[in-house]
C-alpha cells in the first residue's frame, strides 16, 4: 500500500498482526487470512484535561505497547513465529502516535523477519465494517474524532463523495462537551455524555446548518452552540439536543446525496460516532427511503482498533502488497482516495 510496492506471490493462508496508533488508542489485533478475528486488544490514553496531546498520547502508547502485544498473542493462543505479516496504520493521524506504532511494527517485522504492510487507517475502518456486517459495496459514513467523510468504491479506489470542510463530527461534539464542563471518563466518552443529555432536551434551537454541495462545515455550528450555552437562555440538555440534531442532519443529508448519486444499495456507518443511536436512526430512515440496507459496525470494531489494521493488512498482503521497512515512513495526511484497493475488483 506504500508508494513503492513490491509484489509477492499471492498468499491465502496465514495470520496478520495489526498495530493501530493513529490517535488516542493503541491497539493490537490478529486476524486469520480467512477473516476470523482472533483477538483485538486496546489500551486508550485518557487526557487529564483537554483534548488529545499528541506527545502525551505517544508516550502512553510506548508505555503500554508490550503489554497490549503480549495480551493479544496470549488471547490468540499464538506464538510470534506463527505470524505471517505485520500491518500498521501508516496514516492519516497524529505524527508522534503514528511513529510509535510504526516503530513497534518495524521492530516486530525485522525481528521476526516477516513482511511489513503499511495500511491506510480509513480503508481499515471500511474493510472491517464490511467484514463484520457483511456489506459488500456500501456508501460508507465514517465519522470519528478526526474524520468525517462519505466514501464509496468507484474504479479502483474508495472515492470521497463528501467530507467536512473543517472539523470532524466527533471533534465538534467533544469540544462542545468540554466547553460545557463535561469530563472524559473511562467507559463514557464525551460524545456518549452529549448523547445522554440530548435525550432530555425539549426545546429545539435553530443553529447554523451548513451543507455545501456534498460537503459540510461544522465549525460555525460549534461556535453557535457554545455561544447559546454561554447566553444561558436554554438548558445544556436543549443545546446538546439541538447541536446533535443539526450536525447529524447535515451528515445524514450528504450520505443520502452520495447514496442517490452512486445508486449503491448499502449504507455502512463506522467510526467512533457510529455508536450514537440518534445518528443510527437517521441513517436507517434514509436507507429505508431509498430501499437500501443499513449496516452499523459493532462498537469495538467501529472505534480505532488493531483488528481492522490486521484485516486491511491481510487483504493487501493477499494481493502481494508489502511495504519495505526503509519506505515505511508514516503519512500524516494520507487521503483514502490516494490508495488503490485491488481486492475490490
Amino acid at each position: 500500500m506504500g508508494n513503492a510496492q513490491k509484489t509477492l506471490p499471492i498468499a491465502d493462508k496465514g495470520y496478520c498482526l495489526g498495530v493501530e496508533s493513529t490517535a488516542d488508542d493503541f491497539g493490537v489485533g490478529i486476524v486469520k487470512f480467512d477473516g476470523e478475528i482472533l483477538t483485538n486488544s486496546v489500551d486508550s490514553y485518557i487526557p487529564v484535561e483537554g483534548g488529545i496531546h499528541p506527545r502525551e498520547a505517544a508516550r502512553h502508547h510506548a508505555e503500554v505497547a508490550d503489554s497490549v502485544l503480549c495480551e493479544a498473542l496470549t488471547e490468540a493462543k499464538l506464538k510470534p513465529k506463527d505470524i505471517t505479516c505485520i500491518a500498521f496504520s501508516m496514516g492519516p493521524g497524529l505524527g508522534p502516535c503514528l511513529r510509535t506504532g510504526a516503530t513497534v511494527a518495524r521492530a516486530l517485522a525485522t525481528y521476526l523477519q516477516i513482511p511489513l504492510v503499511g495500511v491506510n487507517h480509513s480503508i481499515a475502518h471500511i474493510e472491517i465494517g464490511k467484514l463484520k456486517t457483511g456489506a459488500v459495496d456500501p456508501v460508507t459514513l465514517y465519522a470519528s474524532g478526526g474524520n468525517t467523510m462519505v466514501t464509496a468504491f468507484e474504479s479502483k479506489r474508495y472515492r470521497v463523495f463528501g467530507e467536512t470542510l473543517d472539523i470532524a463530527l466527533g471533534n465538534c461534539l467533544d469540544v462542545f462537551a468540554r466547553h460545557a464542563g463535561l469530563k472524559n471518563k473511562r467507559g463514557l466518552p464525551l460524545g456518549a455524555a452529549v448523547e445522554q443529555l440530548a435525550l432530555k432536551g425539549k426545546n429545539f434551537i435553530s443553529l447554523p446548518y451548513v451543507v455545501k454541495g456534498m460537503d459540510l462545515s461544522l465549525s460555525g455550528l460549534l461556535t453557535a452552540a457554545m455561544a447559546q450555552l454561554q447566553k444561558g437562555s436554554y438548558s445544556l440538555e436543549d443545546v446538546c439536543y439541538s447541536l446533535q440534531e443539526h450536525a447529524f442532519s447535515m451528515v445524514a443529508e450528504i450520505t443520502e446525496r452520495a447514496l442517490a448519486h452512486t445508486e449503491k444499495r448499502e449504507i455502512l456507518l463506522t467510526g467512533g460516532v457510529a455508536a450514537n443511536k440518534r445518528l443510527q436512526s437517521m441513517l436507517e430512515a434514509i436507507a429505508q427511503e431509498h430501499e437500501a440496507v443499513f449496516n452499523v459496525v459493532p462498537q469495538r470494531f467501529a472505534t480505532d482498533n488493531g483488528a481492522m489494521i490486521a484485516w486491511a493488512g491481510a487483504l493487501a498482503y493477499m494481493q502481494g502488497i508489502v511495504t519495505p521497512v526503509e519506505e515505511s515512513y508514516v503519512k500524516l495526511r494520507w487521503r483514502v482516495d490516494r490508495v488503490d484497493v485491488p481486492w475490490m475488483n
Partner: protein
Amino acid sequence: MDELKQQQPILLKKGAEASLYVSNWHGRKALVKIRMPKKYRPESLDKQIRSYRTIHEGQLLHQAKGAGVATPLIFMIDVPEATIIMEYIEGVQVKQQLNMVQKEGRREICLNLGGLIGKLHKENLIHGDLTTSNMIIDNQGKIFLLDFGLGEKNVALEAKGVDLHLLKRALQSTHFSFWETCFKDVLTGYRLVAGGELTEKVYEKISEIEKRGRYIEERRQ
C-alpha cells in the same frame, strides 16, 4: 383542468434533495420538482430547509438569466409545498455527455461551462452545488444550469472559491480519469469571462479552502 387530470405526473427521478416528475403545465411539458419532507430530521428544521431552498432556487434561477446563463423557465412556485414547476429541458446531463465525447468535445463543454460560472460569479451569484449532474446540454450544445437550491447571492470571495472547489471535487469523484484537464479548461473559460484578476484571486482562495480540509498533503501548520 381535465387535461391536467388526465396527465398523471410521471416520476422521473427520486433524488436525495427532491423528487422530479414530468407533467403538463397548460399544454407545455413541465418538470415538477418537489422537496419531500425528510422524516429523519426534526420537523421545524426540515420545513425551514425545504422552504428556504425552494425560495432561493426560484430567485437564483431567475437572477441567473439576468447574468446571461440559461436556466429553465419557472411556471409556478409553491413554497408551503416546497414545489417548483418549471420548463422541461430536453437534453442530456453534462455528466453523461462528458463520458460520451472525445477530448476536444470535453474541452468545448468545459470552456463553455467555465464561462457560465464566470458570468454567475461576476454578478455575485453562487450556484452552491456545481456537479455535472446538475447541468443539462441540449442538442444544440447549449448548457442549462439547474438545481440552485443551495445557492445564494454573496459578494465574498470565499463563496466563489467554495463554488469552484465543489465543482473540482465533483469532477474528481465522478470523472476521475480526466478531471484535471476538465477543471483546467473550466478555469480558462472562467478567466475569459471573469477576467484575470478575479480568476487569480478565486484560484488562490480555492487552494486556501483546500488546505483547511483534513488530511491534505499540501497543508502545513
